[in-house]
């Protein structure tokens, strides 16, 4: 028998996470993890979110440059606008906004899909084959969401920087090479490391919370939207709290 989520139980969540990590850690020998499910999850969470992420990143990058230039040129400090781009977008907004998009699109989808599968006894069917639902449905989705999240955050940063450059053209004809040179002069490896760590954490949080709530549905389809709402609210809280924690840790280490 695989670990099953218990209803309304904090310990239920942690034992679910434990069972998932246990099965994820032996991924090489675990034939229950499905590469097809991982691929489809990356496609849905990553590839299909690109238009929305592109729009958000372009707009945010542009707006930061717009507001930053307006503010800083008044003090004759226009060069620092790139610092704002790095600090605000690369360090914070890219992770948070991407996470919110992933919660809204994939977190809800995962929770709803698994909840409906539970109601329709599809999870019992998988288990009757001897396939572990935790490995096949949960671990595969967790891997898919984490990989997609890392790629999306990286993509968000690239597009935001591009958006920043495009908008900076409005104020001064700065060629791309100069803009990038200024930008890279303030970008540090630690920013990229923090961004990577955050994206992995956010991906883990969103996928674990969503799969847990989806698998926690027991009998009725009316439980599905209730569980999905809980998954969204808890994911957002957890993502922001973990963001604060990671930022604080990096600030201490600096």
């Amino acid at each position, binding site marked *: *028998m695989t670990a099953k989520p218990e209803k309304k139980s904090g310990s239920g969540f942690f034992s679910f996470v434990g069972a998932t990590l246990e099965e994820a850690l032996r991924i090489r020998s675990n034939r229950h993890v499905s590469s097809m499910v991982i691929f489809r999850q990356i496609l849905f969470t990553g590839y299909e979110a690109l238009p929305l992420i592109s729009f958000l990143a372009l707009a945010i990058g542009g707006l930061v440059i717009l507001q930053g230039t307006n503010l800083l040129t008044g003090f004759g400090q226009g060069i620092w606008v790139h610092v704002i781009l790095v600090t605000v977008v690369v360090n914070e907004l890219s992770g948070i906004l991407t996470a919110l998009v992933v919660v809204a699109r994939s977190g809800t989808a995962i929770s709803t899909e698994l909840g409906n599968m539970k109601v329709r*006894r*599809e999870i019992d069917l998988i288990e009757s*084959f001897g396939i572990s639902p935790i490995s096949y449905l949960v671990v595969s989705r967790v891997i898919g969401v984490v990989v997609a999240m890392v790629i999306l955050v990286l993509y968000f940063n690239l597009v935001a920087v591009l958006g920043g450059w495009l908008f900076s053209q409005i104020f001064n004809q700065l060629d791309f090479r100069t803009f990038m040179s200024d930008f890279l002069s303030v970008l540090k490896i630690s920013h990229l490391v923090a961004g990577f760590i955050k994206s992995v954490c956010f991906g883990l949080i969103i996928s674990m919370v969503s799969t847990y709530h989806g698998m926690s549905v027991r009998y009725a389809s009316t439980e599905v939207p209730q569980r999905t709402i809980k998954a969204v609210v808890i994911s957002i809280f957890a993502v922001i709290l973990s963001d604060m924690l990671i930022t604080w840790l990096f600030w201490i280490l600096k």
Partner: protein
Amino acid sequence: MIAIFDGVSSREGLSDFSLRLNLDKVTQLYDPSENLSRAILYAMVGLDELHSGEIYFDQVPLQEFIADGPQIRKLGYVFDEGIMLSNLSLKENLMLPLRWLNPHLDEARIASSIQSWMQSFELDLDLNKRPVAYHPGQLKLMGFVRTLLIEPKVMLIDDPFFLLNKIERKVLLKVLDQLRKTCPMLIASIDDEFGVGFADEVIDLSPFETNFKLL
């Protein structure tokens, strides 16, 4: 193979339940409530959670029996509803347990086997479509095809006639009648077609109703 329920109490409602089942022949579980028989089948394939007692297969406890080799090769469970994974095509649904059992399976041989079983069940479906494209009776028969492709030692069939129309019932009965000589079955049903002239043994579960608690 002999299955023994020894004082089993479980999440699905079994309460201090004991029974001996001979799985070398065709047995009908006659259960007017239909809940107890499902709970028995669920427990046998490891879908239930035992609180106390034990289930033995030829004196081997359930968990050891499940852990010792692929369970679906031993007990092929056909659900009462034609449950299919709705995000997979019919073909992917049929292939899922087979691919898990053997990642390097011979796709051409399986495809011909699928066609052969579909002909037996008089099914003419596009396997590239999702289950939602077909009605529950057809999906139920596809559930039989999926289990038969695995060639289990024993078939556990929950309410075989559920969701089937008159024609589909006749087709299913014809196929099962051919299979009964080679494949032992445990059938949970209250339909007379399985009780009279079909099953080698009929076990009336009515006296055991006190050993079942509805959730």
